[in-house]
């Protein structure tokens, strides 16, 4: 049975129609709201490509059932992190370091790093690597990603 669900996504309240209250947030964002930032990678919370912020925390949207979210909780996706004219420092740093190959994992890298930097102001390189240890990249962009996060940290 189709039912309505209210979410707060990128600062706006949105109402979506769903058949299954346990559908993961990822599919609401991608299929109901046509957002491209959060990406499907594994559906198992193993790779991080689907990462979004829920109340400022980095969360794997592929294993977050909609039923676990209230309309008060603030969901922020890559699209809501910064605007093209006013990028988040982490997004800016990723452009400045040219830190993407295919870029499929980059949503997760940016969202995870942004949440990490919000609570760790002056991280060491080792801390950045640890913070991203559960985000997978297959192209081998790791070195540039670390540089970009370090750049954003000192911005």
């Amino acid at each position, binding site marked *: 049975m189709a039912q309505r669900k209210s979410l707060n996504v990128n600062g706006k309240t949105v109402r979506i129609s769903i058949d299954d209250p346990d559908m993961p947030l990822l599919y609401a964002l991608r299929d109901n709201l046509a957002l491209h930032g959060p990406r499907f990678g594994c559906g*198992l919370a*193993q*790779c991080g490509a689907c990462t979004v912020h829920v109340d400022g925390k980095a969360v794997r949207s592929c294993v977050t059932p909609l039923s676990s979210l209230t309309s008060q909780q603030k969901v922020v996706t*890559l699209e809501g992190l910064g605007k093209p004219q006013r990028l988040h420092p982490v997004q800016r740093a990723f452009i400045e370091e040219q830190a993407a190959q295919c870029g499929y994992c980059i949503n997760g890298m940016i969202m995870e790093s942004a949440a990490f930097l919000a609570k760790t102001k002056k991280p060491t390189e080792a801390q950045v690597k640890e913070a991203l240890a559960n985000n997978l990249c297959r192209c081998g962009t790791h070195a540039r990603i670390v540089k970009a996060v370090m750049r954003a940290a000192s911005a």
Partner: protein
Amino acid sequence: MTIHASRRDVLKGAGALVVGFSLAATLGEVLAQGTKPLALTEVDSFLAIDTKGEVTLYSGKVDLGTGVATALPQIVADELDVPLNRVKLIQGDTALTPDQGPTWGSLSIQIGGMQLRNAAATAKAALLEEAAKRLDAKKEDLKVVDGVVSVGNKRVSYGELIGGKSFALKLDHAKPAAAKNPKDYTLVGKPVPRVDIPDKVTGRFTYMQDFRVPGMLHGRVIRPAAIGATLENVDETSIKDVAGVVKVVREGNFLGVVAESEWAAIKAAQKLKASWSKSQTLPDAAKLWDEVRASKVAKDEVTSNVGNTAEAMGQADTKTLKATYDFAIHTHGSIGPSCAIAEFKDGRLTSWSASQATHNLRKQLATMFGMPVENVRCIYVEGSGCYGRNGHEDAAADAALLAKAVGRPVRVQWSRADEHGWDPKGPPTLIDLRAAVDGAGVVTAWESEFFIPQQTAGSFNVPLVAATLAGMPAGNDIAPGNIFQNSAIPYKFANVKTVCRLETTPFRPSWIRTPGRMQNTYANECFIDELAAAANADPIEFRLKYLDPNDKRGIEVLNRAAALAKWEKRPSPKRDDRGGEAATGRGIAYCKYELARTYIAAVAEVEVKRSTGDIRVTKFYLAHDCGQIINPDGLRNQIDGNVIQTMSRTLIEELKYDRSSVTSLDWATYPILRFPQIPEIVYDLIDRPNERPWGAGEPSAAVVPSAISNAVFDAIGVRLRSVPFTPDKVKAAMKGAA
């Protein structure tokens, strides 16, 4: 400018040298008529300039995340003297882009880019000729800035010159038009930022996985429980509670579901009860190498034969060394599982996918559905990086089969398990090496045998899973991707290379980054290191001694890697090893890619923990000569990828399976390298602006496994001959050596 009667005459190929623009239709009309030229011998196949001077570039080579969507326009914009942002790129659309071959083998710049450069240079020469007439000036007095030709205060733009027409100019890629003098390049050789990255970091980029078409449904596939199993029964009542299911599609052993929403399709695929016959077609994983060795040889090829190795091996004062190397089965491991959309309409099939070979896919789909190839159009939409022939084409076949069954466009997104379980694999590689060293320590013979699957002659079509399962025409070609390459060596001693082409190999094989060249270079460069150690010689000096003295670029790349790494000249292993817990070492590896192009030399520095067998690569140095560098920053990015991905493959990766199917179906069971394990990578990129550009997408990956193995030997005196170099294998090797 000569105005020709009609574009049709030109296309008929009357043989006349065409030196001007035709009175043909505008590009818009050409597209509407479906007559966009695609031949490699036509400028219009590659290039169009509209009345506003906007350039459209049609490339059969596609950007797989490698940056060629920036580098190819860079080449063309520079050749034409137009700003980069006025060049629009269309990639991999069988209705619009010429068949420049699949995007593979490090050939996008080397072949694809040079065809585009030729088209641009040819177009520019014609534009200048026309401008000279219009401006009443000599061609050599003309200046071009941002697509505007001028002399004194007279000026005319490319848009005005072309006047909405097409070029109708012939191309001969064997005799390319004169390109600009390299010293005049303003974009080529510069670290131009990638055009796609801003959209990729803000969520505006549309990957294949994001792409949607109107009226589209969502499909999922349910693969057999075992490879080769037969579908016995499907219980559709098992999904009666899933809202939004449109159809269960069963065709032979192909099983799929189509639903209104993606989540409904996922749930239906998970819940659908199906029973499959038992099937055990895979080898016992513990005895894989015995099975490979015992596989029937379809063909025995000799890839090089110099001197008389048998005679040299038989000499009295000669010592013979032997070693066997193996390299595990790998999966592509794209972070985004394969995805495609297909639509059948009015007897025509349109397929959107991230295929690296849309022209080949078009033929495969036409064969699968028994359709004329003209009625199939394949369009490339960039997806997650693929590093070779992963599952993109198979997803395209799945989508087409489901779309046909429901009469609406269907999007198929593979699951993680679909990708790990069913993408074609990099085949297992087994290599035997033998060498003779005489009393004076001189290598007098080298013999090698490569146990690798055969390549179906003239075919690079990996059979489509859906076609095979559904019993539709699929063929059973074996296409691992010219993996005999780099079986022969660059060193000058009597040598014989035999490539055993095995009739079969477990799993459907395909190419994964640096196919064969990686495995073969690994064995060759480790074994040459074994010979250096046996001769008590410095490994670099030893290589230099046997390289062709006329191969100056090869010698330079080795010397520059040594300088970059501050190489200490001495034999391996390290003599001053004090036997502590952490041993350090360094290793060299060298490769001339396919013995014909890009040169690479690498030095790996490693730390080996004796108690655990853990290898950490601390630093990786690379000297790289691919001729003219188009974009040095793009090149570095690509090499980072080669080094890091290949470290992962070398140290960790190994496909797991039982007798029925793949069992490493996720990232927990098929782990890849993580951030804390990433080394510092230091480069010396040798730019040769006056040489032609060679490929860089693969070559630097070829030297990674051997550089690491050689460094481990330097550290602990133990030779690793089996990829991946897991801690258990390191400990076992140490135990064996003790």
